[in-house]
């Protein structure tokens, strides 16, 4: 094989890897948007107090009405919304090939994943009740974690 053919193949490989990353980070951004919508809705009902009625779901009432639903008076859902927005921002910048964005995206998702495990533990073993909005958010975070693991490490970089 000639040198130029080898170079071309490497170039093509790098380009397809970059394309795959762009696709994966775009998918991650869409997942983040779904999580952001869910967490924003939960934040709003935490502030309006609609939690009490909570669309008539007992599990939702028990989980969102529990003392674990707020940290220092701030609804956990609001922290979740900030987390999803941060992850979305890094996913977008990573899709545009920004140098450090993938690392920050992975770090944010890892933190959210740890928080998700904690909240799943609380629902299963402490509160013995599940909130479907919280489970939806947990599913999104699991998917994001899966994408972080599946995304190939970046090679081409811009500023």
């Amino acid at each position, binding site marked *: 094989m000639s040198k130029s053919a080898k170079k071309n193949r490497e170039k093509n490989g790098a380009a397809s890897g970059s394309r795959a990353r762009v696709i994966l980070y775009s998918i991650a951004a869409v997942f983040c948007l779904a999580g952001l919508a869910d967490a924003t809705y939960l934040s709003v009902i935490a502030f309006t*107090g609609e939690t*009490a009625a909570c669309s008539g779901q007992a599990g939702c009432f028990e989980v969102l009405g529990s003392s674990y639903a707020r940290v220092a008076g701030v609804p956990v859902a609001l922290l979740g919304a900030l987390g999803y927005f941060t992850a979305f921002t890094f996913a977008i910048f990573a899709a545009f090939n920004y140098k450090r964005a993938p690392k920050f995206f992975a770090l944010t998702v890892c933190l959210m994943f740890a928080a998700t495990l904690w909240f799943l533990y609380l629902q299963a073993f402490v509160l013995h009740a599940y909130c479907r909005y919280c489970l939806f958010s947990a599913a999104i975070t699991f998917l994001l974690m899966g994408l972080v693991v599946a995304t190939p490490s970046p090679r081409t970089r811009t500023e």
Partner: protein
Amino acid sequence: MKRYLPFLIVAAVALITVGTGVALYRSQKLPTPTAAKDSADPGLHVRGDAKALVTLEEFGDFECPPCSVMSVTLHQLEKEYHGKLRVIFRHFPLAMHPHARAAAHAAEAAHQQGKFWEMHDLLYQKQAQWSKGVDVPSLFPGFAGELGLDLERFKKDMASAEIAARVTADHELGKSRLVTSTPTIFINNVALPPTSTNPPGVRAAIEAAIKEKSKP
């Protein structure tokens, strides 16, 4: 242009999220329920000592799952604050629950035979069972049978205009006090904020009311 595109996307999402959140907050913000002007009511469902330091008044709906959770909490709190807590129940069947009014009638019919609270507890305990049933009103005589009530009288009372009027009166009273959701709780005639209408919130409000009343 491509250089600025990620910034534009992030800014647009931030604006849309904040805008949607604010719009949703405005549309869902509940009015603050107001205190009762006169609590004298001969048909009142009361549990606990009349001289209790704290009176907790609940507007509830038998088909509402959070109310079912709250009924368990209230039983626990009554044991904890024995002699200090009095509980009043009022009907507020929500339109979104198709069988809530029939269940309220069943509780009132049981009241005619002196077993309101027994039926109240049974309806909440078996809520998951009857609320998803097909011919729901036909299930209530079965509950009356479990409580040892006179079934003929129970069925007659359930269909009576007097009982319908009793439930409607509670509902109208709730509406006049700006109750919109269930459970809505008043502690010593002060509405509990919706954000505190949950087991820890109710406990904290009872503690605060006891401290307030115990002040010299």
